């Protein structure tokens, strides 16, 4: 049953392979520099590698937007996104898988009465603007550099042709890798919180995590999409908006690959942050937006002539209609799956503003006088809480987010039967595991409560502050450990 439910994710993966992967090699194949078969093989191999090796980076942000907590729910959301992509492709409208999945998740939030985290949504929508702009800027800089360099280097036309082909293959592979790393969470991201796979230890040499298995399956689905359908999409890319030369095609692929990689790699983000660049979210960005941004960048660098503004308008409108259509399809599909097929498409998450929640909020520096009158209230869904909070006038978004995260009732029971499984996975440190054993058979109604208890028992459960050494990598690893135990010990309330 679980594998049947995963099939919609694979359908989405297939459509991502057919559409978004075409963006990576579309310009190279379009300018006849690389044969479709060569491009397809490289794209397929590197998409899978990117998905498995670095796929986990961007999936976190989607998880924050809406934590889809049942397999039938994840199935329906992925199906809704895949249907929107297929529908838009059929209508020959440009489409982005990232936007379809975000729209579908919001549809789930609306259906399940969950709160759409405005901060995460704003971050994601902002990247939809930042991604093409950044891609255009990178393309302009690269274009100016290559123009200057090629004028000085005096490379023979035929040598330049050979170097461009080699370059296109290398950056195409990099682009496919980045696409796999960045967009795999679109395909199977919604399944990560309800993944059926557990970690596999291969002869004590290395461990493949449950999520990596999920990413591998998603990557293979993308690869199948590349081989079976992308040649139709490839033919239209890059030819309609602005005519590209082989060298500019190379610049376009390089620019979009850099942008995709920037938003996928935790290492690059850590490196940039240590250089003083402000923290930015790792989100699945759209390869279509990146490629169009880069092509526009080249067109601007060449003086802005010959841009097909009507096509640009059509593409931009698709960026608004895609999430809206996906949201509607998702909502309707969830209704059907729940009421016609009798499936649990979400776990109910109640919210409570009990005394202990308010105390905790006070400790975190929240101005509790604003919510004193709500003390002791309980809400069946996030949406109810949200409606009630509207009565408080001077509550800002950050304060609202704090209330949502502390008031959410996630029941945890430290089941001794599961502790053996947790130990066998060998993911926690000795001290971490001992502290978990100490609180065996205890239950907690909030995630933060569970976390506070663990920190009291072992400092290994405490996040490092910015002043501490290597805090970014340490905290990322600790978050994985927390997610791992939450996955095991959470009690699910079926609606």
């Amino acid at each position: 049953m679980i594998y049947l439910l995963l099939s919609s994710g694979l359908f989405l993966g297939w459509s991502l392979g057919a559409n978004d992967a075409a963006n990576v090699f579309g310009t190279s194949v379009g300018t006849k520099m690389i044969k479709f078969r060569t491009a397809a093989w490289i794209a397929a191999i590197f998409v899978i590698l990117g998905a498995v090796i670095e796929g986990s980076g961007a999936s976190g942000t989607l998880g924050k937007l809406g934590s889809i907590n049942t397999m039938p729910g994840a199935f329906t959301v992925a199906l809704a996104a895949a249907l929107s992509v297929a529908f838009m492709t059929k209508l020959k409208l440009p489409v982005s898988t990232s936007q379809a999945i975000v729209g579908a998740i919001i549809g789930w939030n609306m259906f399940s009465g969950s709160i759409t985290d405005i901060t995460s949504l704003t971050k994601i929508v902002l990247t939809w603007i930042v991604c093409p702009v950044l891609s255009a800027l990178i393309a302009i800089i690269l274009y100016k550099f290559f123009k200057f360099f090629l004028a000085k280097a005096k490379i023979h036309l035929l040598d330049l042709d050979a170097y461009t082909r080699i370059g296109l293959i290398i950056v195409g592979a990099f682009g496919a890798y980045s696409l796999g790393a960045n967009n795999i969470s679109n395909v199977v991201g919604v399944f990560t919180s309800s993944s059926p796979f557990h970690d596999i230890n291969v002869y004590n040499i290395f461990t493949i995590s449950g999520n990596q298995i999920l990413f591998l399956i998603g990557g293979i689905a993308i690869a199948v999409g590349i081989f079976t359908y992308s040649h139709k999409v490839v033919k239209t890319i890059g030819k309609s908006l602005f005519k590209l030369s082989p060298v500019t095609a190379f610049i376009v692929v390089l620019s979009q690959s850099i942008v995709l990689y920037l938003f996928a790699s935790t290492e690059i983000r850590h490196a940039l942050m240590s250089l003083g660049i402000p923290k930015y979210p790792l989100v699945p960005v759209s390869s279509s937006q990146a490629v169009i941004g880069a092509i526009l960048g080249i067109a601007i660098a060449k003086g802005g002539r010959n841009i097909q503004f009507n096509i640009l308008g059509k593409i931009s409108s698709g960026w608004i209609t895609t999430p809206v259509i996906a949201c509607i399809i998702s909502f309707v599909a969830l209704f059907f799956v729940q009421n016609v097929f009798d499936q649990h498409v979400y776990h109910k998450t109640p919210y409570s503003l009990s005394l202990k929640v308010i105390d905790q909020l006070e400790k975190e520096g929240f101005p509790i006088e604003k919510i004193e009158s709500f003390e002791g209230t309980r809400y069946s869904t996030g949406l109810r809480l949200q409606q009630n909070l509207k009565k408080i006038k001077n509550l800002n978004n950050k304060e609202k987010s704090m209330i949502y995260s502390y008031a959410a009732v996630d029941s945890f029971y430290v089941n001794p039967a599961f502790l053996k499984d947790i130990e066998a996975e060998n993911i926690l440190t000795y001290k971490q595991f001992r502290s978990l054993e100490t609180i065996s058979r205890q239950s907690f109604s909030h995630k933060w409560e569970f976390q506070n208890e663990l920190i009291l028992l072992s400092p290994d459960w405490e996040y490092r502050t910015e002043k501490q050494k290597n805090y970014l990598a340490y905290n990322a690893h600790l978050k994985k450990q927390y997610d791992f135990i939450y996955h095991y010990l959470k009690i699910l309330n079926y609606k």
Partner: protein
Amino acid sequence: MAILLKTSKMIEMQIDDFLNFISEAGIFFKRGLENYLKDNSAEFEKRLLAVSEHERKADELRLNIEKQLYIHTLIPESRGDVLAILENTDRVMDDIKEALQVFAIEHPAISEEFDALFLELADSSIESVESLIRSVRAFFKDIASVNDHIHKVKFYEREADKIAMSLKNEIFKSDINLSQKIHLRFCVQQIERISDSAEDMSERLAIYTIKRQI
């Protein structure tokens, strides 16, 4: 990848050889005309033979280059332009051969008083071809300097025009008979045509150069 670079290098060498043949044919033409004017028919025949031989080899090379470009699907964006460049440059070569053949077949009687102007005309025409060859080489290797060479093609073509005009004036002012005058005018036009073809080709090259900007 190594095969790709090896093929590219091989074709680059062939293009260089092709251009060398045309450039050398121009020099042979000048020497041949000098030999003709000095009535050195043995040397003249040798030059004529060399030009014909170069023209044949250049033709073979051009066909081979074209075939290789298609077989290995090289330079897909500029392939059409490169083929046009090779074919039109080859046409200049044909003009050189035809002009020299006119002297070989028709044996125009040229009085000594016109020798200097005939040589000057040949010099300017062949200089325009030389500049064209330099601009074609630059098209492949140094795109920024193509226009400098194209400028020289035009300069020498104008020079050739002026010399041809004064030579024709001199011919028709002289007291040789009319049929001879018309025959000499035809010979002048044949030499002049070389620089005209070079100029036509350079104008196309200017457009291809704009297309080759990245």
